[in-house]
């Protein structure tokens, strides 16, 4: 926002007043609280998880065993599950979200744009536990009865994918990495669509008019003008969605199967950092090594999502949007 320099210099010439000083200080403190909260989350996670890092060394991060019975904790299964589900969700949701955004900004009849846009924003506002329940009671049975057996048959024809390897070979339980990724994708889809639409709307109309005047089609205007103009922000929207998917708990905990071991198939019950933390927490006593391991996991998740979100915000910086 432009600052009127005349008004600014007038403020400067006045003697500071107690009311103004305390006003400034209280607002400054409020701003400082935001920074302090973030810093203390990082610090508390680190201090709480320190015991885990001390006991298991830095290998805590890549140890594959998570066994509460023998009190051996390694983070890799949860990290793997988190990364696979979040990335898969983005891969599924991004193209569709992008398509929806393109439709809403360029193709959709003008009268329908606002209602459809609001509908998408409302979908994004539905609490994640509701997505989780839907995944557990509706999607998971459907996956295990119809989709997964079918996929197994299809991929059985392709030798490297058919058997032994990672993908579609395990018994179709319904709950597991694949279903969790799908629920996450459904959940972040409206979010990505809304953010991408806002980014596309921020392209100056003049640029698009120019493209049309040169005889470009809508598609050519999109690929030749809109996308190059807002490329950074488009990636920002994706990373914002990724940040959501990484830390999502309730939508995942219902459908991932909650087995903290290295996944050997996309059908296999697995776990993400957030689901492990939520699931193991009720058994973890204060001061126990298990709680320390959970806090250590929290620390890892914090660092990863901080990185992703910071990148997203830097990419989105010019436009500044939800």
């Amino acid at each position: 926002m432009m600052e009127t320099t005349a008004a600014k210099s007038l403020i400067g010439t006045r003697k500071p007043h107690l009311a103004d000083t305390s006003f400034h200080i209280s607002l400054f403190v409020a701003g400082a609280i935001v920074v302090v909260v973030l810093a203390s989350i990082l610090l508390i996670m680190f201090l709480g998880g320190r015991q885990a890092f001390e006991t298991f060394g830095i290998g805590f991060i890549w140890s594959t065993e998570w066994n509460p019975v023998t009190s051996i904790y390694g983070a890799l299964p949860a990290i793997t599950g988190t990364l696979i589900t979040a990335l898969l969700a983005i891969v599924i949701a991004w193209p569709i979200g992008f398509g929806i955004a393109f439709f809403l900004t360029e193709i959709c009849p003008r009268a329908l744009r606002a209602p459809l846009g609001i509908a998408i924003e409302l979908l994004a506002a539905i609490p994640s536990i509701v997505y989780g329940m839907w995944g557990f009671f509706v999607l998971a049975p459907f996956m295990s009865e119809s989709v997964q057996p079918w996929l197994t048959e299809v991929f059985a024809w392709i030798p490297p994918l058919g058997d032994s390897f990672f993908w579609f070979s395990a018994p179709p339980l319904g709950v597991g990495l694949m279903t969790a990724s799908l629920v996450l994708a459904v959940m972040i889809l409206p979010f990505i669509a809304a953010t991408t639409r806002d980014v596309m709307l921020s392209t100056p109309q003049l640029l698009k008019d120019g493209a049309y005047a040169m005889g470009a089609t809508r598609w050519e205007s999109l690929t030749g003008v809109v996308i190059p103009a807002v490329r950074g922000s488009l990636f920002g929207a994706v990373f914002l969605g990724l940040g959501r998917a990484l830390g999502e708990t309730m939508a995942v905990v219902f459908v991932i199967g909650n087995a903290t071991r290295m996944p050997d198939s996309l059908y296999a019950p697995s776990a993400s950092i957030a689901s492990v933390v939520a699931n193991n927490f009720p058994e973890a006593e204060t001061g126990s090594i298990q709680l320390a391991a959970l806090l250590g996991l929290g620390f890892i998740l914090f660092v990863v999502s901080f990185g992703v979100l910071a990148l997203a915000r830097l990419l989105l910086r010019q436009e500044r949007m939800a």
Partner: protein
Amino acid sequence: MDAVSRGFAGLSLDVFTKSMSSTGTGGGLANAIVGSLIQVGIGSMIGAPLGMMVGVYLSEVGKTSRFASIVRFVNDILLSAPSVLIGLFVYQIAVAPFKGFSGIAGAIALALLAMPVVARTTEDILRLVPQAYRDGAIALGSRENEVVRKVVLPAAFGGILTGILLAVARIAGETAPLIFTSLGNSNWSTDLTKPMASLPIAIYRYAGSPSADLIQLAWTGALLITVGVLLLNVISRISLAAVKRGQS
């Protein structure tokens, strides 16, 4: 998602809004609803004023200064930070030291989630207030705090209220942070120092139970929460559109 609404729209509201839930079958969600209202209420009462102050700081005082840029950046990160981590954090600072889960800890966690939402919308709305309002107030001899309190904030009141409603909608559906803080409670309790029930936790517990009755209750809870959250969103979006139309 309409599969969801169809799924539980059939399970209509019977007695549950009145009766209390018990450990066995049957019962209702009344204590969970009240617990949610209490925690969301207190959470908003802490988080909303704090968030407003942050928003005012960013828009009216800090502006483009270095510290304000940091606060803005950190606030944006907090806005999308995983809510499990907020829960774990509040567990470490407000549950573990006092050796007990409590409704107030749940409210604190929700406040931390509401604050960045309110801060963000407040800043955005205050930026829509025409600079001429501020200049006019200064020309009339107002002090800086008077400019903000008597001119800028009243002009943006509707928009800020909208932001608060959005924040309330967001925290009303939060489940993960409450697992670590207010824990949930199957009995009637309004004692803030004791574990407290909440709608999302009740849904989480009941959805995972083997009893068909309780699963039914979980769907009803999910319906209540979805309708509540969507209503808050619709109301706030309608009023926000009105505010923006009036100002730009």
